């Protein structure tokens, strides 16, 4: 089976779907048209650009360039995590906690998979390294931003109960533990849902892509299982680390709850 390639004409036809959604929502005075069109335009432009970058990257296969692209991806994901927080940590911590956790979990697991599970030659072959890192970062980004948002939200709302424990002589670790649990649970919901529903409710995107590209379903399935395990571990370890660092930052060395280290939510 050969791949049916798409051209600008086909994509223009597909875009009519989004445009008609925008038009109808405007007629109904639902006011999502502008955001919808901006997002759709961003998708088209960003992905086209990424296509060129990937093409160039696959041709050079140079480790320096691959590393550079990987860190740019990380920085963008870190920025996303920061801006998705209702009350983010002020100063360098707002960017640092999420980005550090994402870096450690995503990069470590991707390196592990490349060197010990998939074994492409060389191990950094960009056709494998870049998409896998992208999947890891995308999912870890979601779990970390959900987890941190839940943690800071709860700490703000539950200031009274947290301090009630501190005044009884409990340590900060004890006082924040229930909220760290809640934050981790929230952060893992999308990943656990995706694993539970995989194949029954939806065909995962990566697998769908491989099948559309003409690969046998068995290969697609095996890659999908590998990716899902990697993503789950990455999202889980990343969120665990981020919520731990976040919890630690919420208290100072005198075990005081320091909500002044959070930005007030944008009004």
């Amino acid at each position, binding site marked *: 089976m050969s791949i049916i390639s798409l051209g600008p004409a086909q994509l223009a036809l597909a875009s009519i779907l989004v445009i008609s959604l925008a038009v109808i929502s405007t007629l109904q005075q639902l006011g999502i048209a502008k955001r919808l069109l901006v997002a759709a335009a961003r998708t088209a432009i960003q992905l086209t650009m990424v296509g060129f970058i990937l093409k160039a990257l696959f041709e050079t296969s140079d480790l320096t360039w691959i590393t550079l692209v990987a860190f740019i991806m990380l920085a963008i994901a870190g920025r996303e995590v920061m801006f998705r927080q209702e009350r983010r940590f002020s100063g360098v911590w707002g960017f640092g906690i999420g980005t550090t956790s994402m870096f450690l979990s995503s990069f470590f697991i991707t390196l592990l998979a490349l060197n010990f599970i998939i074994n492409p030659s060389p191990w950094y072959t960009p056709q494998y390294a870049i998409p896998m890192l992208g999947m890891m970062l995308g999912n870890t980004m979601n779990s970390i931003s959900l987890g941190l948002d839940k943690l800071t939200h709860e700490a703000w709302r539950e200031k009274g109960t947290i301090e009630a424990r501190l005044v009884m*002589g409990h340590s900060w670790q004890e006082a924040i533990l229930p909220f760290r649990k809640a934050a981790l649970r929230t952060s893992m919901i999308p990943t656990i849902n995706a694993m539970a529903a995989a194949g029954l409710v939806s065909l995962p995107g990566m697998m769908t892509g491989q099948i559309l590209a003409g690969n046998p379903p068995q290969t697609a399935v095996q890659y999908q299982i590998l990716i899902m395990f990697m993503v789950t571990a990455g999202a889980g370890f990343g969120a665990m680390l981020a919520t731990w660092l976040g919890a630690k930052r919420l208290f100072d060395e005198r075990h*005081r709850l320091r909500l002044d280290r959070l930005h007030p939510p944008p009004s």
Partner: protein
Amino acid sequence: MSNSLKTLELQAFIGPKLSTVISQGQIVFLTGSSGSGKSLLLRAIADLDPHKGEVWFNNQKAMDTHPTIWRKQVGYLPPNSFWWDDVVANNFDNCEDALVYMEAMDLPKEAFDWQLMRMSTGEKQRMSIVRLLSNQPKVLLLDEPTANLDPKTVRAVESMIIEYTKKNNCSVIWVSHDLDQVKRVAHRHLAIDEKQISEKPL
């Protein structure tokens, strides 16, 4: 003086400065209008907020004591009671030690099994005083402990605190708006006025 609480130029944020020594067995009332910084001073002594100046207890500086040990000795009662578990007993580190205070507060032993959602504000307030005392603190920092209680219960709380203070040689700072209560209970009276703290005659 051992077992005394000493503050030196203690200041929370931009509030008034407090320098005083509260000896064992002494109950000092702190009064002042709302927003004058009474609660913030208590929080500073319990080391819950960053602050300037020094606090000493028993010849030991707060900053040289591990915060969890400091706060066990220097027991702070917030103006509103907070609970981290739905069942009363799970909010206590030591239920045995609490029984004697439960009795003094007219709360039955079964109250440990109560659901917090079903309790009244007054019951919760009494229960939070029981919880504080069951931790056996050597200093009490009470932020309007009787604000939500009926007159009879107010008297019960007063006599329980007085008895606890005598028995354990405690130092007490008690924030209140009730000047009759000052007359009934206080050994000393500090008043905040225009960002200054001064000793008032009783």
